[in-house]
């Protein structure tokens, strides 16, 4: 890694001033995306501002119909939280399905959503659950927040502090793993909201990152069951192609994963 300076502010205010004061600064939480990128010299920040010690970014709690998760909560702590298990078990299970145990001990929800990797798991939950990303400046609804491959609505120096999710009557996630990277090659998060709205988000395979699959949503509006998706064909143009799978293959996998999610409410199922 190139040389850089490491700072660990204890308040949001101090983090913002550190960002202003250092040209080429980057925030860090778990470092499990950023440090590997820096070792590969795909990123070369001059200063790393570690946000893991800031109290506003910690804790998981329910208020009424909303679960709020601090950006610095690790995948492991999210997966083990009892309040989340009771309210949104599919989200807890999704967190427990990311990467491997060591990655889950360090990687965080805030880091994952700030990064918005097109193959990451959390963006599908944010989009299907219509969550809200809270920052040191504002609250950003999922539909505005996620903007394509590695793109979000975050402005220069903006800090993700918490992510709010509504508690919904139905949520489930199913993914088919990429054989080498073990990130999802296709991940589908299905949610039916309190007001009846159905949102189905697909990660891992979209040519423009995570997206809502309107064909599946329409079919489920008529009949909210796995059987409603039998024979459904999706437009391959929406999907990416690489040596691990063609766009046609990915398009065919999405309804399969959606059906498996529908048959296993409150869970995250992994297929490989």
């Amino acid at each position, binding site marked *: 890694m*190139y*040389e850089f300076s*490491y700072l*660990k502010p204890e308040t949001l205010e101090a983090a913002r001033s550190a960002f202003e004061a250092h040209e080429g600064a980057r925030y860090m939480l778990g*470092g499990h995306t950023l440090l*590997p990128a820096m070792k590969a010299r795909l990123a070369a920040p001059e200063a790393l501002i570690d946000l*893991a010690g800031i109290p506003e970014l910690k804790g998981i709690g329910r208020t009424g119909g909303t679960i709020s998760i601090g950006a610095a909560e690790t995948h492991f702590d999210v997966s083990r939280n009892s309040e989340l298990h009771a309210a949104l078990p599919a989200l807890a299970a999704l967190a427990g399905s990311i990467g*491997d*145990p*060591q990655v889950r001990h360090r990687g965080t929800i805030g880091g994952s959503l700030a990064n918005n990797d097109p193959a990451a798991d959390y963006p599908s939950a944010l989009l299907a659950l219509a969550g809200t990303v809270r920052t040191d400046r504002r609250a950003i609804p999922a539909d505005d927040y996620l903007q394509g491959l590695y793109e979000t609505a975050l402005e220069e120096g903006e800090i993700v502090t918490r992510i709010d999710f509504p508690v919904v009557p139905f949520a489930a996630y199913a993914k088919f793993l990429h054989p080498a990277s073990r990130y999802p090659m296709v991940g589908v998060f299905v949610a039916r909201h309190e007001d009846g709205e159905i949102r189905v988000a697909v990660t891992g395979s979209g040519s423009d990152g995570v997206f809502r699959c309107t064909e599946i949503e329409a079919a489920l509006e008529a009949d909210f069951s796995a059987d409603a998706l039998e024979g459904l064909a999706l437009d391959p143009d929406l999907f990416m192609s690489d040596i691990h799978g063609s766009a046609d293959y990915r398009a065919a996998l999405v309804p399969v994963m959606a059906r498996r999610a529908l048959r296993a409410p409150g869970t995250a199922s992994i297929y490989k």
Partner: protein
Amino acid sequence: MAHVELTVNGRAHRLACEDRTLLVTLLRDALGLTGTHIGCDTSQCGACVVHVDGRAVKSCTMLAAQASGSAVTTIEGLADGERLHPLQAAFREHHGLQCGYCTPGMIMSGVDIIRRHEGVLDEHIVREELEGNICRCTGYYNIVKAILAAAEDYPESAAPLKAEPARV
């Protein structure tokens, strides 16, 4: 320069290092604890796994400065003098290693698996939980067998022999 204060295998250290120093580099080069290996340096193989505040982490993917204030346990911290930790003994008994390169990471991950599952394991769980550890020699069969055998010795096998019981 970073000033890092941490406890390693029960001993307190105060060290100065570059801000970019990885935890694994600090352990190996500054403290001479070369039992922790570097296999890939790309967060994939798990040869570098140590426990930070009781949790298994890849020490090649953590800055030494991030570990300041923490308690770190390495493979050297498991045994009590000549008395092997139950998982070390099980690896010996069940031939859980060949070249030995992955072994420190396998054992640190294994102890973490036994701890998180409170000793209640089956072959499927162990194989899933070893997702982050790669062995290019053994085919995993005897590694899994060793972890299952040591799980029978829960809770002794879930923490270093000399330490107070780790939190779940």
